[in-house]
């Protein structure tokens, strides 16, 4: 219904019978948001419009120094080695990708001259290749020209297993060809609907061939430029002390007009989130604080009469409670939580539904996340076109109790429900982290009232998130009944994020628990939908498939989403940062500026 109308309208825009603006206005009438409308256009094959730039300064420089405070300092400056966002953020100060993501999840040009689309011939109709045109006249900081050779080299560099690049996953299944000096073509092995993975965003940053060519493969670690980045970015490298400070200065040959605004840049690392918030919001020693994971009432207090404020960016990060579908307490062939077992309590759908009714998301938002969270019934919370509207959540101890009662779980003498001699006792684990322990407490309390005994466990984050095979407390082993954490969604496309729960990725002893499907949930419909979506080039059908995936998870209560988390940053009052929930904080740095005061 809407589907057909949408299609007609998209065709009209394609043919020029309707302009973009009226399309967006029509979509608003359907109750969609403007960014969502432009996304639909974009995925519908209409060339993506670049988001309007918010950048105001009319000349290069003059903004003084920009002081950034990261509470985990970057430890290396090669985007291909970056193990965490902090390292990507650091390298992104100097290195640039072909394009990045703006706050609405739109693509924004950096080193590319135009966004590939069906119209300009950049995208192949069969989804098998994408052709990027590079911006002419771009120079590396040492004056050498940036060309297609550099792009091809980055692919060769990263896909070589001996290089040990963490970006290998992006590059090993594609082929990158040079068409001419300013054109490269990426060829896929199969139709690829999400083509903007390689060379886009912080992990797609490009390093210069002329400085790294000799250090490909096994010699990768010896490159002197691993510590002295020579990029194309708005700032030139000055100094780097791992874990402590990075400094850069304005690059006067930068390829974007009037940019950058700041004459110098400094990124300081170390300390903790609260004092970072304090140094930006309260005392104004720094201009911008990264990832301020601090309880909202603390932030509100700091903001009173302070020199800064908090800034939010919406992405797709969901804090969830995962339910174990296998039995963590029975060993089969020397393996706990083996896929050959069934969870004695959680295999009852009534128990899973009841648990979902017992997570008071309003309270969790009010007490813990405040402005930094949104309540949601969905596991997949963005971008807009992939978010299911078919689901809802509620908190009701009475309903949960009735559900359990009807399913035969009767309260015992100690108030804990039991059935067939099995008591409703659950072990609920998570990483050590203030908000997480508070959420645990809120959930436990509600469960107790409904007759479910919940034992809480918290594991040091460095152990919980490790891939150490010898440790029993990792999230992937999942030797508990429930566990809570968040898997960051690093790009505005759900393919990577949702693929993880395909049944072929079940974490087992055999794959050394490197499998990504840690709830060990097996659902044929889900597998089929994922497989179909991976090759579906029709954007509307594809979105529908991912919505179906989310709804299947919802029906089976694989995850109980506790909160849709927003990115929280601290910024000086005069600073105008551009932060996207779909990108790293420094991804849009070229658009940052300071409002003149006085």
């Amino acid at each position: 219904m809407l589907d057909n109308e949408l299609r007609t309208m998209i065709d009209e825009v394609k043919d020029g019978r309707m302009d973009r603006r009226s399309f967006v206005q029509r979509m608003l009438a359907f109750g969609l948001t403007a960014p969502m409308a432009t996304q639909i256009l974009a995925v519908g094959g209409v060339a993506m419009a670049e988001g309007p730039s918010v950048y105001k300064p009319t000349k290069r420089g003059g903004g003084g120094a920009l002081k950034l405070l990261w509470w985990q300092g970057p430890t290396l400056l090669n985007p291909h080695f970056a193990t965490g966002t902090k390292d990507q953020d650091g390298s992104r100060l100097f290195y640039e990708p072909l394009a990045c993501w703006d706050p609405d999840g739109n693509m924004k040009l950096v080193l590319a001259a135009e966004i590939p689309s069906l119209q300009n011939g950049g995208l192949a109709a069969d989804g098998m290749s994408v052709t990027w045109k590079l911006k002419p006249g771009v120079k590396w900081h040492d004056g050498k020209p940036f060309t297609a050779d550099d792009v091809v080299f980055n692919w060769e560099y990263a896909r070589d297993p001996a290089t040990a690049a963490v970006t290998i996953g992006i590059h090993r299944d594609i082929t990158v060809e040079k068409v001419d000096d300013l054109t490269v073509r990426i060829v896929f092995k199969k139709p690829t609907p999400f083509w903007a993975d390689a060379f886009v965003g912080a992990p797609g940053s490009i390093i210069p061939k002329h400085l790294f060519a000799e250090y490909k493969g096994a010699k990768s670690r010896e490159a002197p430029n691993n510590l002295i980045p020579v990029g194309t970015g708005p700032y030139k490298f000055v100094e780097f002390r791992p874990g402590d400070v990075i400094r850069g200065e304005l690059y006067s040959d930068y390829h974007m007009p009037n940019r950058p605004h700041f004459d110098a840049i400094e990124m300081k690392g170390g300390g903790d989130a609260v004092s970072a918030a304090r140094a930006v919001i309260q005392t104004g020693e720094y201009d911008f604080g990264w990832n301020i994971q601090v309880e909202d009432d603390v932030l509100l207090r700091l903001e009173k009469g302070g020199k800064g404020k908090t800034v939010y960016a919406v992405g797709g990060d969901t804090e969830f409670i995962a339910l174990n579908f296998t039995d963590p307490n029975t060993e089969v062939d020397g393996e706990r939580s083996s896929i050959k077992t069934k969870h004695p309590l959680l295999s009852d759908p009534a128990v899973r539904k009841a648990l979902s009714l017992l997570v008071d998301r309003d309270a969790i938002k009010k007490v813990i996340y405040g402005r930094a969270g949104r309540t949601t019934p969905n596991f997949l919370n963005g971008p807009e076109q992939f978010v299911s509207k078919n689901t809802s959540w509620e908190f009701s101890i009475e309903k949960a109790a009735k559900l359990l009662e009807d399913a035969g779980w009767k309260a015992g003498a100690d108030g804990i429900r039991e059935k067939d001699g099995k008591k409703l006792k659950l072990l609920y684990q998570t990483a050590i982290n203030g908000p997480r322990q508070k959420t645990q407490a809120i959930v436990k309390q509600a469960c107790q009232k409904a007759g479910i005994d919940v034992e809480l466990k918290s594991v040091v984050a460095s152990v919980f998130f490790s891939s150490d095979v010898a440790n029993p407390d990792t999230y992937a082993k999942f030797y508990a009944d429930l566990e809570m954490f968040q898997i960051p969604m690093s790009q505005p496309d759900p393919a990577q994020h949702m693929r993880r729960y395909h049944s072929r990725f079940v974490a087992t002893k055999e794959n050394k628990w490197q499998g990504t499907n840690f709830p060990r949930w097996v659902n044929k419909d889900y597998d089929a939908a994922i497989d179909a979506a991976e090759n579906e080039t029709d954007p509307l059908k594809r979105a529908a498939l991912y919505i179906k995936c989310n709804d299947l998870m919802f029906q089976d209560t694989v995850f109980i989403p506790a909160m849709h988390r927003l990115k929280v940053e601290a910024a000086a009052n005069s600073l105008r940062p551009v932060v996207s929930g779909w990108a790293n904080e420094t991804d849009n740095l070229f658009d940052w500026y300071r409002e003149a005061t006085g």
Partner: protein
Amino acid sequence: MSQYVLRRLLIAVPSLLGISLVLFIVLALAPGDPFSELATNPNVPPEVAAALRTKFGLDDPIYLRYLHWITAMLRGDWGFSFVSRMNVDTLILQRLPTTLYVIGSAQLLALAIAIPVGVYAATRPYSIFDQIANTLAFIGFSLPTFFTGLLFILVFSITLDWLPFVYTTDIKATGFRWVIEQVRQAIMPVMVLGLFQAASMTRFVRSAMLDVIRLDYVTTARAKGLGQARVIVKHAMRNAMIPVVTLVALQMPAVFGGAIVTEQIFRIPGIGSLLISSILSNDTPVVMAVTFVFACLVVLFNLIADVLYGWLDPRISLR
């Protein structure tokens, strides 16, 4: 004397080997691995994380890894950090000056307070001065540095806005202004650490001094008609300093090792914060190197203390 030093040196070698072995095993058995951040990063396929582990030798048996490490170390190769992929020695040398400056100043401050106050208090036991000094010392070492650190920040940075609370390694000013800035940003951490150390050291100096001051030879010196100051400084203090030297010498490794808590609070990029962040990210080569350097320093300064004993009291080296 030289034989005595040689003997001590020979004992140091096997102890260092033993220490390195224990450290290595403990670290190898500790949970977590350096690539944990990759585990939740959807860009990184699990096979890549596994390949990285193999490449960096994490899947080798412990004894092989130890042999690798110790032979490399003997050749002067400290290994490289898994996390920043740069050489460990570069990393440590980068942090050392800051640590020496801040923690060293704090130690000097502590000594500058503790020796005069302790000695003076001991010469007048139970006087008003002694009582006040004692009370302050008790308060001083009962308050942990993370508490006083935060208190200082709240008072001097936030309420009064006099001092910065984020330590900057590279101050942009030059000349005199640079010196001023360096001192300004070090005031709070140095005070916090120095006062804490001074408190316990004062008590120590006082009791050592009290022991000596009652000995017969001091009375003899007085009886010969020497002035009070001369008796205290020339006669009593020299002997009283023996236990104090032990204490100071044993604390010297801490000067190099940094003060983990204080460095964390003030964001001082020193060895201590390097150690803590490496432990958190399971960067074993760095942790191993830092702790081993630490162990070497402990052994070295014990040796120095022994030699100093010999100088302060020649009877010790003869035995």
